[in-house]
């Protein structure tokens, strides 16, 4: 029909052909020029019917996969999966174009059709297509094959592909969170190192809580975790190898090491080392195990985080009298302060995009997660809790997670720690499902 045809032209004709078409004689009337500079910012209505399957097993997996996709996209705050009960067309074959009109009627702006197949070799294959309801064409069609246990990862990959095609930026659903699982009363808190999928599924505890662990962070391959452990009452930075389950103290420092973070290439760890009460920032090369001091100041220097290109490090320091965010070159030179708002600022973390630094802003009796440009401009507060701190970025630089500590009332009522997330725009603040109380989330990179 006409819509299809035009979009067809728009899509499939190259710019050259199109330019040629523009040479056609101009019409008689001038066009009305309108500038629109206001709009809404709402989740995109998208229809995601259960993926079909040719037998009950496959149908069930198809429904499971679609469920995860719907949940992923909904949680992003950028999509609004429509209720399947509103669907008019019943998708029975994903290799035939859908009846776009049926989907426009229910005001879908995107449609995902998919199919799950259990292959003779036992592997699960998932095919899906994303349709442009107005342009009436396929925007992307992909197929994944993996062992059936990995069906959730396939679903996350489908979500990532849809997210990327529609928003223009990479997705973040096929990722994990390393965090600290908390349990027990406030005076005797048990903290365990744990990982889970970004949607809270598949939690696994890596330590058993017989010693305190804090501030875990993934390396760029998501195979290694750097964290702080109080094992043997010696607070030090450790590495945890997820493939072997082995833990290893990083270096042999006489005093506390803490606040570790990997460099973008994964070859070194930057962290803080305390000496006679003073904390400075060091970097340790993981291959040679040699370390180098980067700051040398009587004030507290800690919480370092590399810029994604590896050339700079942001950190917090109270060298100017109060806790603030600073940036220096990766060799420790050219230190400059970047946070100048009211109150204090700490736990800076450089965005994977490089354009922002997320941090904890402490002002007016509240701890809030905010972002600031590396030059110190554009400070924005994103979260709304009483005590939100320690942000971590999704690998696409679009979403942040952080720890929310709840206020504890008289007699210890209330309190506790939760993981929350918020979009970099400040929208879509919501709790991340974790097994029980949780803190210190750190996002993995996209799993390769």
């Amino acid at each position, binding site marked *: 029909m006409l819509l299809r045809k035009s979009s067809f032209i728009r899509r499939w004709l190259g710019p050259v052909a199109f330019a040629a078409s523009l040479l056609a004689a101009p019409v008689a009337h001038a066009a009305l020029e309108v500038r629109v500079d206001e709009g809404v910012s709402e989740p995109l209505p998208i229809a995601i019917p259960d993926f079909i399957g040719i037998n009950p097993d496959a149908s069930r997996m198809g429904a499971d996969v679609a469920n995860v996709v719907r949940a992923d996209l909904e949680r992003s705050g950028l999509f609004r999966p429509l209720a399947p009960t509103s669907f008019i067309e019943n998708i029975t074959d994903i290799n035939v174009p859908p009846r776009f009109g049926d989907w426009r009627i229910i005001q879908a702006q995107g449609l995902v059709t998919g199919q799950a197949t259990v292959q003779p070799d036992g592997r699960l294959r998932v095919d899906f297509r994303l349709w442009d309801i107005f342009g009436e064409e396929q925007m992307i069609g992909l197929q994944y094959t993996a062992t059936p246990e990995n069906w959730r990862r396939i679903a996350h990959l489908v979500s990532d592909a849809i997210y990327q095609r529609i928003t223009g930026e990479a997705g973040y659903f096929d990722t994990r969170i390393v965090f600290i699982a908390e349990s027990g009363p406030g005076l005797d808190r048990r903290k365990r190192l744990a990982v889970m999928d970004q949607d809270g599924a598949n939690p696994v505890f890596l330590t058993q809580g017989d010693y305190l662990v804090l501030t875990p962070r993934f390396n760029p391959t998501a195979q290694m975790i750097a964290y702080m452990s109080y*094992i043997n009452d010696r607070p030090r930075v450790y590495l945890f190898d997820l493939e072997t389950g082995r833990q290893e103290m990083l270096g042999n420092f006489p005093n506390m090491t803490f606040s570790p973070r990997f460099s973008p290439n994964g070859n070194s760890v930057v962290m803080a080392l305390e000496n006679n009460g003073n904390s400075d920032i060091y970097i340790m090369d993981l291959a040679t195990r040699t370390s180098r001091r980067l700051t040398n100041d009587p004030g507290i220097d800690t919480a370092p985080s590399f810029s994604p290109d590896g050339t700079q490090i942001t950190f917090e320091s109270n060298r100017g009298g109060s806790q603030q965010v600073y940036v220096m070159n990766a060799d420790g030179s050219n230190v400059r302060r970047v946070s100048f708002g009211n109150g204090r600022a700490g736990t800076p973390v450089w965005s994977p995009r490089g354009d922002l630094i997320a941090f904890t802003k402490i002002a007016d009796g509240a701890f809030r997660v905010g972002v600031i440009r590396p030059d110190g401009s554009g400070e924005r507060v994103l979260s709304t809790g009483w005590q939100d701190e320690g942000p971590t970025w999704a690998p696409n630089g679009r979403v942040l997670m952080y720890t929310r500590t709840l206020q504890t009332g008289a007699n210890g009522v209330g309190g506790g720690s939760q993981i929350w997330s918020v979009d970099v725009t400040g929208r879509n603040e919501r709790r991340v499902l974790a097994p029980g109380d949780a803190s210190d989330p750190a996002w993995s990179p996209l799993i390769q």
Partner: protein
Amino acid sequence: MRKGIIVSAALHLGVIGAAMVTWPSALRLSEEAPPSVPVELITIAEATNIQAAVREPPPQPTPTPVEAVVPTIDPDMDIQLAEMTPPPPEPQPEPEPEALPEPEPEEVAQAEPEPEPPPAPTPPSPAPREKPAPEPEEEFDLDSVIALLDNRAPRAATPQSAPVAEAPRRGIGDQSAMTMNLRDAIMSQMRECWNFPAGAPNAEELFVGVTFYLAPSGELARAPQLTAETRAAMAGNAYLRAAAEAALRAVNICAPYRGLPTDQYAEWREIIVTFDPTKMAGR
């Protein structure tokens, strides 16, 4: 209580230490657990370069009680990925109602600016679609990663493109009260339809131009088009492409456009909208 824990912990450490002395081989320490070389604690006050291997901390039971743990990230998950070509647009067999190139309502373009109230507001009737003929199953090569199939290939030759011309632009001086009012009418409707993709990096730079034609009824006379400028800028810019698609959706969703005086149809038959993100990107 706390003291009890400390004492208990100390006791346990002592026991572990003793155990290590007694059965050193019983505990498998990882390689990093170095032989217990008695070395004195050093201060690192002036040490700016700390060597890892040398300093050995007190002979406490070395770290590394490796916990029995299931590694949770399967590095070899081996997910195969293949790209699927779009299915053929139409079931071919039936040379049915909506056969090939849909007769374009180009006539609309010639519609007179006359007050003539359009008889039938050309609804975007989704042509009745035949039940899809049994598809020739697409061949999926299951376990191999198929190199990107060219999406563009499968389409048939293009039908004659409706020459959507970019109209000569008006001078600013041409602004009249009438056009101002028309602009306002369009703008106020578009405001509700434009779902701005906030959050993109440099979102304030994602300007998008869309040209579209309206029927006298206010319906779209044909599918909206991105301006040549936007199309050119879009190449290789996924964010701008996303913004452009959002703009097209906005124009589509907003139809039919209301409140446009039919006697001025000639003035709003063709509209060029510039979606200006500067305000919205203010985040």
